[in-house]
């Protein structure tokens, strides 16, 4: 953490000196939201220590963004804070972004803390590896911790090559002992172990080629460094109770992501080959998304999604996507409130376990936005990692004031 602070402060100095050249910083550069999250669980948890069936949380995120040089240079700072009623691990602060960028005709350089997304599929972001999951936020792993990096993008006629050097590793956040939607036993993040003697100071590298050819969008990437997914090793805490300890291996991962956009049909593929984390393995997600535009003469668009998830490590693994079929539907009402809904069902072909999810959102007023989320877990079997969530069916309401 000290290293991160040093990096942050030296970066701040560089940026501050740069900012002196900048004249007009206005309130228009500030945006963000404050939100209240409520979660209600349908039943009591599996362990007595998780003694709540409702939970309140306050969330704040602010973005300061300023660019100059016709948008070819800029600066972004995005602090994030969550205060949680029941889980001290969920109460946390993070710098989502603290970046300076400079762009030119055939390159872009970005220095600092950032978030980068790779991939095309919807139910799992298999090849997305630059940022660590901020897993206390949501089990969908779409919330990420800011990753310190130097990123140089080389922009050529034949595509873009992104090079990443990542000097500091972020450990995954896990819900604490009192938290819900967690593994059983819980993960003790204070006792994380690393393959590398440099621990979180191991320097990670990645390179990615991306381009589009007509209606095909392609990404090829290689990552060498600390695995963002830890292995979870069974251990005991000081009182002799079972805990899981995260172990971060050094891995090599090569991946492809591909999308073909054919009319109203999107064909999607993500695949990876990873070594260094136990046995070498391969994993794949393939699927489609088809959109019916303006159904029944209305303004409503309905999308149908189908994906197959495969991991050749099989049932023994930490992943819940080893042989799973996912189907879903996305409904966009195209109304003035930007109402949307996304339904999904994931079926584990091995264990028979099922996971159902709804996400819906609507703008209530110019600055007010409401999101509803529900996740239900059916038919989980003893021995499946997803069994830990068996009593954690929940409904979430998230109301934000945006500015």
């Amino acid at each position, binding site marked *: 953490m000290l290293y991160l602070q040093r990096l942050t402060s030296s970066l701040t100095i560089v940026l501050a000196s740069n900012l002196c050249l900048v004249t007009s910083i206005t309130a228009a550069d500030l945006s963000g939201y404050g939100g209240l999250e409520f979660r209600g669980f349908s039943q009591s948890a599996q362990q007595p220590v998780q003694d709540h069936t409702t939970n309140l949380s306050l969330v704040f995120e602010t973005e300061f963004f300023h*660019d100059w040089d016709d948008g070819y240079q800029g600066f972004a700072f995005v602090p994030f804070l969550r205060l949680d009623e029941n889980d001290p691990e969920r109460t946390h602060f993070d710098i989502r972004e603290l970046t300076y960028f400079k762009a030119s005709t055939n390159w872009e350089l970005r220095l600092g803390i*950032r978030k980068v997304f790779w991939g095309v599929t919807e139910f799992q972001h298999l090849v997305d590896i630059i940022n660590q999951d901020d897993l206390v936020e949501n089990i969908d792993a779409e919330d990420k911790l800011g990753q310190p990096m130097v990123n140089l993008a080389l*922009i050529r006629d034949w595509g*873009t090559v992104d090079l990443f050097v990542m000097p500091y590793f972020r450990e995954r956040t896990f819900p604490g002992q009192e938290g819900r939607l967690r593994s059983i036993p819980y993960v003790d993040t204070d006792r994380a172990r690393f393959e590398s003697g440099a621990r979180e100071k191991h320097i990670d590298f990645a390179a990615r080629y991306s381009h589009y050819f007509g209606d095909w969008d392609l990404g090829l990437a290689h990552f060498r460094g600390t695995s963002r997914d830890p292995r979870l090793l069974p251990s005991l805490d000081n009182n002799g109770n079972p805990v899981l300890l995260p172990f971060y291996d050094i891995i090599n991962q090569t991946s492809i992501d591909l999308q073909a956009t054919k009319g109203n049909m999107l064909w999607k593929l993500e695949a990876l080959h990873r070594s260094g984390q136990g046995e070498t393995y391969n994993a794949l997600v393939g699927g489609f998304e088809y959109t019916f535009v303006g159904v029944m003469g209305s303004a409503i668009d309905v999308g149908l999604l189908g994906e197959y998830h495969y991991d050749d490590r099989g049932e023994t693994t930490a992943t819940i996507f080893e042989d799973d079929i996912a189907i879903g539907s996305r409904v966009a009402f195209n109304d*003035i409130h930007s109402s949307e809904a996304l339904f999904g069902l994931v079926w584990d072909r091995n264990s028979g376990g099922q996971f159902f999810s709804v996400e819906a959102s609507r703008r209530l007023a110019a600055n007010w936005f409401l999101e509803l989320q529900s996740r239900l877990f059916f038919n989980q079997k003893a021995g499946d990692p997803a069994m830990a969530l068996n009593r954690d069916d929940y409904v979430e309401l998230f109301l*934000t004031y945006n500015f």
Partner: protein
Amino acid sequence: MMKKLLIASWLLIIPFEILLAETPEEKGLAIAMEADKRDTGWTDQSAEMKMILKNRNGDSTTRTMSIKTLEVDGDGDKSLLIFDNPPDVKGTAFLSHTHSLTPDDQWLYLPALKRVKRIASANKSGPFVGSEFAYEDLSSQEVEKYTYKWLRDEPLDGRNTFVIERYPAYEHSGYTRQVLWLDKEMYQPLKLEFYDRKNAMLKTLIFSDYQQYLGQYWRASMMNMANHQTGKSTTLTWENYQFQTGLSDRDFDKNTLKRAR
């Protein structure tokens, strides 16, 4: 002097050519080509757009966005649209490489996830962000997007216009036909009627507050689209038009999406 004379004679020849056109179809096409020719050469433009959406009850909501456009010879234009308001979509960006007769290439940037998403674009008739404008209403006007038929000349609000019917060439268009009132002086639309796939009148778009830029290019500062079937309407107002600011293909690529504001 010689140059002035040349320009004067050139200006005289055009209406003469139009008069010589034999069929209403040829005349319609000739007018469309002239309108296109007069609006060629602006290279790039940027503007700020305010969109006011009103429902049948008069409730309204406002969106603001900035739009940059790059003129592309021999194909549809490239455009980058960045949302500023409402705040929950601030920074959402929409990149479009438009084509006349084939689906556009479109990417959406979602700032919360930092995700660039290629989106399905075959259907250009869907509503644009809940407004009464369809994607195809807002994309660049290319001659080959329609076939034409001149109907008549008539005055509209004290201005002389050509009235032209045009038929979308794109197979997935949401319209059977459009009727266009084109100002004879500016060669710009004053009014446009849209007929749906059942050939029922769907919408009327009124262009107003035209201003001329670079001494040549006319742009309406206000566009009002009324949907006759739903009673809803959308008004666009345009501000801060700038032309020839030196934008290039690079300002309209996938990389640019991630730092657009």
